């Protein structure tokens, strides 16, 4: 009888979530998603099922607020709401609230997350207002190898104490198949500090699509990320996480799905893109997606069969709309190189149709210390020029010689690295850092 009672007690303990405070381990995250000036989604994974609670506040010793999601599980998704724009919040994730400030200093609640680590994030500033903004851009990072680590480490050194406001993943985030295990190694174990402090905004690549389906919005990519489908972070509702947009300060970011969504000129993604471009009042428009419009790296945008025509579609169908909508920067990956154009417009054919006199809006290197930064009119003007950047080498460069001879590009490099965007009011500065920490390219665009 006594044995039966003990077994029953043990069973009850095991089945009662939250009653074993130190039994669970956070195996993923926390990571930040769908940031807006007044809200943030915090996600994490535990090895055992438990409740989801985020305790947060304006100081590390004043976690005065708690947010929860319903139910218990191992995948935790909690939305913090009614936050102040441009404000730093400290937070702890766990299965129960941390003690309120009135309790004994430093003590955890009896059932609280005693060993949970403190993290912090800063909410985006009010939409529209200019604020110095740093964006880290990683194309095709997910190799899990030393190159990926080196690219990460040189950026960390480069940015130093300057916080990263947001970071973009341009697809092929986790090789080879975008499985949950691939993501665990390639993203969650590679970038834990960035993930807990800065919201990440991904695009779908062909390798991610091995384990995901855009029509049913199912699979690993869609399970892992929480992305705005109703325009809640700015922009027009897309109804899908496959493509979406968001605002940060005076910039509007547009993510397209070049892999798995309908790319027809009258398809839902195109209709959404047109509406989204027409709706934005931000100073800067930055578009990003996986398949490059131009490349002569590990892929060739002149070859129709390469990537099943996706590069052709993005160049011939989507780029004209982006340029007509006033896009300033087009960021892509897929080709494991770095390629950067002049300030260009109107080149929608194969490379042999490129005509510098017709398609280059401004020649030169785009550098203040060189032959001049790129200048665009402040007035939103269609076809005023954009810079196309293929930055698909955050995990590896090509091990084979590649042509790197597309005429649209000012500079082409077969080097691993990542890119950094700094927006300060009406100036945008772009930098490419290779895996050795060398600043291998840079340019600026000024609106006046």
């Amino acid at each position, binding site marked *: 009888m006594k044995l039966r009672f003990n077994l029953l007690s043990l069973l009850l303990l095991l089945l009662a979530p939250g009653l074993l405070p130190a039994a669970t381990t956070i195996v993923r995250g926390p990571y930040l998603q769908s940031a807006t000036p007044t809200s943030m989604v915090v996600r994490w994974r535990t090895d055992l099922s438990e409740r989801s609670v985020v305790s947060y506040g304006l100081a590390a010793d004043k976690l005065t607020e708690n947010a929860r999601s319903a139910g218990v599980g191992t995948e935790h998704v909690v939305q913090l709401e009614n936050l102040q724009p441009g404000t730093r919040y400290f937070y702890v994730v766990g299965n129960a609230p941390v003690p309120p400030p009135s309790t004994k200093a430093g003590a955890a609640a009896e059932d609280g997350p005693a060993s949970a680590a403190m993290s912090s994030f800063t909410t985006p500033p009010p939409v529209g207002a200019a604020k110095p903004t740093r964006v880290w851009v990683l194309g095709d990072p997910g190799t899990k190898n030393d190159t990926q680590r080196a690219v990460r480490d040189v950026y960390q050194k480069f940015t130093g104490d300057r916080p990263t406001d947001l970071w973009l993943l341009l697809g092929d985030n986790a090789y*080879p198949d975008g499985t949950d295990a691939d993501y665990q190694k390639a993203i969650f174990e590679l970038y834990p500090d960035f993930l807990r402090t800065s919201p990440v905004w991904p695009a779908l690549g*062909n*390798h991610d699509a091995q384990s995901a*389906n*855009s*029509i*049913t*919005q*199912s699979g690993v990519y*869609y399970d892992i990320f929480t992305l705005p*489908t*109703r*325009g809640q972070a700015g922009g*027009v*509702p*897309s*109804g*899908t*996480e*496959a493509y979406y947009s968001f605002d940060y300060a005076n910039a509007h970011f547009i993510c397209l799905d070049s892999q798995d*969504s*309908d790319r027809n000129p009258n*398809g*839902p993604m195109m*209709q*959404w893109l*047109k*509406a989204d471009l*027409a*709706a*934005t*009042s931000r100073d800067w428009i930055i578009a990003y997606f996986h398949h490059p419009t131009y490349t002569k790296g*590990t*892929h060739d945008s002149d070859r129709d*069969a*390469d*990537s*099943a025509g996706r590069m052709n579609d993005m160049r011939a169908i989507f780029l004209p709309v982006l340029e007509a909508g*006033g896009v300033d920067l087009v960021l892509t990956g897929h080709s494991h190189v770095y390629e950067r154009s002049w300030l260009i417009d109107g080149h929608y054919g194969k490379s042999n149709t490129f005509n510098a006199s017709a398609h280059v809006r401004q020649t030169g290197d785009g550098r203040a210390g060189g032959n001049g930064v790129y200048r665009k009119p*402040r*007035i*939103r*003007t*269609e076809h005023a020029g954009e810079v196309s950047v293929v930055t698909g080498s955050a995990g590896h460069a090509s091990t084979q010689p590649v042509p790197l001879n597309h005429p649209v590009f000012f500079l082409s490099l077969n080097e691993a690295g990542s890119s950094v965007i700094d927006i300060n009011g009406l100036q945008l500065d772009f930098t490419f850092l290779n895996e050795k920490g060398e600043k291998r390219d840079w340019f600026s665009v000024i609106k006046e």
Partner: protein
Amino acid sequence: MRFRSASFFFLLPVLALPAHPELDAALQRINARVAASPQAAALYLERGEIYLGAGDLLTAEANFQVAAELDPQLPRLDRARATLALSRRQPADAIRLLEGALRRNPADTEARILRARSQLASGHSAAAGEDFAAALALLEQPAPEIFLEYAACAANPIEAIRRLDAGCARLGAVPALLERALALEESAGLIDHAVSRLDRIIARVERPESWLKRRGDLLQRAGRPAEAGASYAAARTAIGRLPDWLQESPATTRLKHELVDSAPSLSLSP
């Protein structure tokens, strides 16, 4: 290992596709796994799906056939073969295969959507609609395309609009759904419905000027010029509220000219 069909021979020229970096890499990986486990039906299915994705239908079929010979009950196999059949514009074959897949797993939403599309390709709109409805009930976050396809199978415009509205209720004011609903409402003479829809859009967008212009155009076409004029004037007022750098943009300037053309009482300057 003995194969009962000639399909094995189709598996030999597996690297004969044109050079394609990802495809080659994927094939190298799967070929190595097949070599290590030649009896594993799932690997042939996976390899067939790679070829199917690359548009090599013949080699895809051969791989599926080997997979079927090794394990006729292999999950996903019928769905893969149905996708192949639909790619070959053989919807009746696809439906037959998908019935098997759905018998085994009624919650297979990909199979359900594929069967709906096959039904639609066969001209069976009502059956297609049932499958889309079942898929939509199962999916947590369906893509807008599915609502568009579901609406396309509707027996009449009213039902199509109802289905599109159901999509908007679940997904938000998605442009593709709104545009289709507006077009259907206008063609069905449901002008007040269309105006109400536009009013809801106008109330929540940051830049309503082009929607107000569309509202005016709709009312003008419906023979309601006074209300149209009010919409055009509201559009002109909305433009006046934009920051200078947007008011003077070429796109806004074009819109101003269009408004003045539609309502000559309006002026180009504020």
